[in-house]
């Protein structure tokens, strides 16, 4: 490992981590710990923000007022989650405008799952059930991450996220008990979203380059493969309850391991989508840029109003 000319503070830092003490913003921390966290929290925040789009596309087409109200609340939550996470990232010394810039120029990534399109109403339910289900599995582990502000944001997000998964399950349950066409629509959505949901946990442990260090720093508490297995074990009985089939012929209960076995994941597809070649990558960034430039006049007006009518904020003092 590079950088062996160890800073003595680094050993104390690791000892503090090993003793399960949270790291707080003003503590000394290795630059790589800071950089890893900025990258991870930013990517997480960007995912929440971009994640508003696939579902937001269905708000005007929701089939009932009840479903529309639920979807609006859910998309509003995603915006909130993005903001909690941006705030957590900012405690590490990166500014909000830098973060927004890095998303919009593609220098930082977001979860590749949001580069898939939402073709039917059943996709809204499937995203809630599978995508949010996978996100919760990952985020529950992150509530114990070593960086205090990140862990606290995760606690808040997990508390809110469980409604997301349940509304998705309920939506799919209704479709699955509906007409043959509704049922087929639900099955088609599950067929399309199952594998990308498994990819959300990231590459297998053997080829996840940053994992070992992140585990040592307790940024990550549970490995990608273990989280993925947890998700599969949790989801199979739910699919059975829904009466829907998960599109994997190799999915089988393994008596000896006490887990479900599942087939190989297409990591080439994952790499392709992650590197910009998914069905919706260009559109997601274009829509985000338009929202940003379209909102510029509002930010401008708010600032002008503040300058005219309020006591100047201390942070603005010349």
């Amino acid at each position: 490992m590079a950088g062996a000319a160890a800073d003595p503070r680094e050993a104390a830092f690791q000892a503090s981590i090993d003793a399960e003490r949270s790291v707080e913003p003003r503590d000394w921390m290795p630059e790589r710990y800071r950089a890893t966290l900025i990258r991870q929290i930013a990517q997480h925040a960007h995912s929440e923000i971009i994640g508003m789009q696939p579902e937001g596309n269905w708000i005007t087409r929701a089939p009932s007022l009840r479903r529309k109200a639920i979807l609006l609340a859910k998309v509003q939550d995603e915006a909130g989650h993005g903001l909690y996470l941006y705030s957590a990232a900012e405690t590490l010394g990166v500014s909000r405008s830098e973060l927004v810039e890095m998303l919009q120029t593609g220098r930082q990534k977001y979860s590749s799952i949001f580069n898939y399109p939402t073709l039917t109403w059943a996709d809204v339910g499937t995203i809630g059930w599978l995508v949010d289900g996978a996100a919760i599995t990952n985020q529950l582990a992150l509530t114990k991450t070593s960086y205090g502000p990140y862990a606290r944001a995760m606690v808040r997000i997990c508390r809110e996220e469980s409604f997301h998964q349940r509304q998705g399950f309920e939506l799919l349950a209704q479709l699955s008990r509906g007409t043959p066409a509704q049922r087929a629509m639900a099955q088609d959505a599950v067929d399309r979203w199952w594998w990308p949901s498994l990819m959300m946990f990231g590459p297998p442990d053997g080829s996840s380059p940053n994992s070992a260090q992140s585990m040592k720093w307790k940024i990550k508490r549970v490995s990608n493969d273990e989280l993925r297995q947890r998700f599969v074990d949790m989801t199979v009985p739910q699919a059975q309850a829904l009466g829907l089939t998960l599109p994997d012929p190799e999915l089988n209960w393994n008596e000896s391991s006490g887990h479900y076995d599942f087939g190989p994941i297409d990591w080439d597809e994952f790499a392709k989508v992650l590197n910009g070649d998914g069905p919706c990558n260009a559109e997601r960034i274009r829509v985000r840029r338009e929202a940003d430039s379209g909102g510029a006049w509002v930010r401008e007006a708010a600032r002008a109003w503040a300058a005219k009518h309020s006591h100047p904020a201390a942070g603005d003092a010349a």
Partner: protein
Amino acid sequence: MKERGSWPLWEVFLRGRRGLAHQHVGSLHAPDWELAVQNARDLYTRRGEGVSIWVVESAVIHASDPDDGGPLFDPPADKVYRHPTFYEVPEDLKL
């Protein structure tokens, strides 16, 4: 892009219900305190988490230095007589 950065950062405190103190819940950017309260309402009380909001500009908060942790907070550690458990009293008495 620059204009967004010039919105100051505010720390948000919520009173969960009457009778409790305000507690720090997070932060947000806003151009002035009125919008900070408004945004805090939207961001931190979507599920009835609070009955009162404080916003304080982050820039005006002064904090102790984390490196002073030892010298600042260690002294009480050897003053065990400040705790009720330090004293031996008859066990059968309510005291």
